[in-house]
């Protein structure tokens, strides 16, 4: 495979990746269907912003956001059936069970653990030890700007954590199971080792004081943009959308079996962060995964960082029967 040069890198040399917006697929079908899948994303985004901006205080609450989020995801699941991006990514019963198991872990046991060692606890400990107060100036900014900052600052941190995971072996071991998914569906973002889910959820938002409405607006950005990261729906996203925001097309390149492709598009919501640091590749891929598309079992996903970590440790620091130290590299297939 020849691949395509993007900056200093050749993308698609190991596995097919379509590079360039002009080359990716478009929504097929009648004018109504085309219009729907062209305008759906921006319409929902602006509708959600308007809703959270103007909703009275009695409605603008976290519980409303949770209900909206669940309802929206159910609707997106239905869209996957109506207009799949690839038939080979169609959601099966087994995939749904697997995905929901990891979603369930996030809502239960991980949340419980997070209450004791999560970023909220860490931020509070730092604030207490330095006798810091929250940065109150934040609340004086316009609401939409506050929301943008909350979303952007979190995504900026997430970008570097994610990039770190692809560049440092111990972190990669936690993230690797997520790269064994062979298709994108709406709940696939939750599929991964719990240690990774914990790490990627760390943020510094707790240092800032902001209006609750701004947090809800930032949540709306996450819902109306971030949700499309792992989704099997073909959209004709507008040009400005693709320039600013991460899309399922961008993220499929990140999940592709192509080594250089997988080292692209690290951000969660704001693809402009990747553009800033030269890691953005505009394109899409259908063949996803690691080791030629080996699907990891739930059990292996849960234990992989520990079993592979132990193997690596033994290889680095163990001794063979001649008493010689083994200094070979790690055995896990590196996308780091």
């Amino acid at each position, binding site marked *: 495979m020849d691949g395509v040069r993007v900056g200093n890198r050749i993308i698609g040399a190991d596995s097919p990746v379509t590079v360039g917006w002009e080359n990716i697929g478009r929504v097929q079908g009648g004018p109504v269907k085309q219009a729907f899948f062209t305008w759906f994303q921006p319409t929902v985004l602006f509708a959600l912003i308007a809703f959270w901006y103007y909703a009275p205080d009695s409605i603008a609450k976290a519980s409303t956001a949770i209900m909206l989020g669940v309802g929206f995801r159910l609707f997106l699941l239905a869209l996957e059936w109506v207009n799949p991006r690839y038939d080979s990514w169609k959601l*099966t019963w087994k995939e749904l069970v697997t995905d*929901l*198991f990891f979603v*369930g872990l996030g*809502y*239960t046991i991980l949340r419980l653990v997070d209450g004791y060692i999560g970023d909220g606890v860490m931020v509070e400990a730092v604030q207490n030890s330095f006798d810091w107060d929250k940065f109150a100036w934040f609340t*004086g900014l316009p*609401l939409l700007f506050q929301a943008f900052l909350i979303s952007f600052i979190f995504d900026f941190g997430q970008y570097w954590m994610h990039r770190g995971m692809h560049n440092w072996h111990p972190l990669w071991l936690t993230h690797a199971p997520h790269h064994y998914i062979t298709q994108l569906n709406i709940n696939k973002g939750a599929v991964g080792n719990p240690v990774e889910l914990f790490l990627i959820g760390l943020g510094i938002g707790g240092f800032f004081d902001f*209006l609750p409405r701004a947090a809800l607006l930032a949540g709306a950005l996450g819902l109306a943009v971030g949700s499309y990261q792992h989704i099997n729906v073909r959209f004709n996203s507008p040009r400005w959308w693709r320039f600013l925001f991460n899309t399922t097309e961008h993220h499929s390149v990140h999940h592709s079996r192509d080594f250089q492709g997988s080292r692209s598009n690290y951000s969660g919501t704001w693809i402009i962060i990747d553009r800033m640091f030269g890691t953005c590749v505009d394109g899409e891929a259908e063949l996803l995964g690691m080791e030629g598309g080996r699907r990891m079992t739930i059990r292996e996903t849960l234990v992989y960082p520990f079993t592979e970590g132990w193997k690596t440790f033994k290889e680095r620091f163990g001794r063979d029967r001649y008493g010689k130290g083994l200094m070979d590299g790690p055995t896990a297939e590196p996308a780091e």
Partner: protein
Amino acid sequence: MNLRFIDWIWHIRGSVPLAAGQSSEQAFERLEPLFRERDTHHVRNSDTLTFEKSNQAPQDKMSIFDGGELRIEQAPSGGVLRYDLTSKILLFCFLAPFLFLSFGQLAVAVGVIDKPTAEEKAEAKKKEAEEEKRAAERKLHPIDQFLGAPEPEKPKTEAEKKKEEAEAKAKGEDEEEDEGPSPTPAYVFAGIFAALYLVGRVLEDRLVKRLFARRLQGT
């Protein structure tokens, strides 16, 4: 214990009639492509085919199965394919509600064990008061005022708080109930997996029967 009483949980058994005059050889010829998948091994004898699978890709039509046996029985009235397939994911989905119920119980237990002391409660109240004081000082930016966004909620007055407490007591709600992590999400997921198991057990049974029937008919 005889596993036959419970192994329907992870076994799918059934039968599909062969087309008229179809031999065992011809039937297996048609079914065999299903077993030419990655990490799938199969052995074929004259009238049986056994297989094992691992790391099944979602794109594999038999991805929920990890092993099984297909047997062809010829009778004067015509041949029939009988199959007995095992599925780890069916068993997993059957057990998942129990796992999530235990997470729910764990959340309850943590709430009991890690009950805040009087000191911690006082500290939390103090923090809440400080937060409310800070909230009272918050003002909308002039741009937002101009665009008509609702003002941030002001902290409740003592009279309002007392009124709410009295209403909650009248409804029989206990203030203590709010303490500790909530077990509700765990119970919701236990329900989801119980429903998913029922759907999967029926759906996958039908899907595999249809798959075999179509292959045998060559459609």
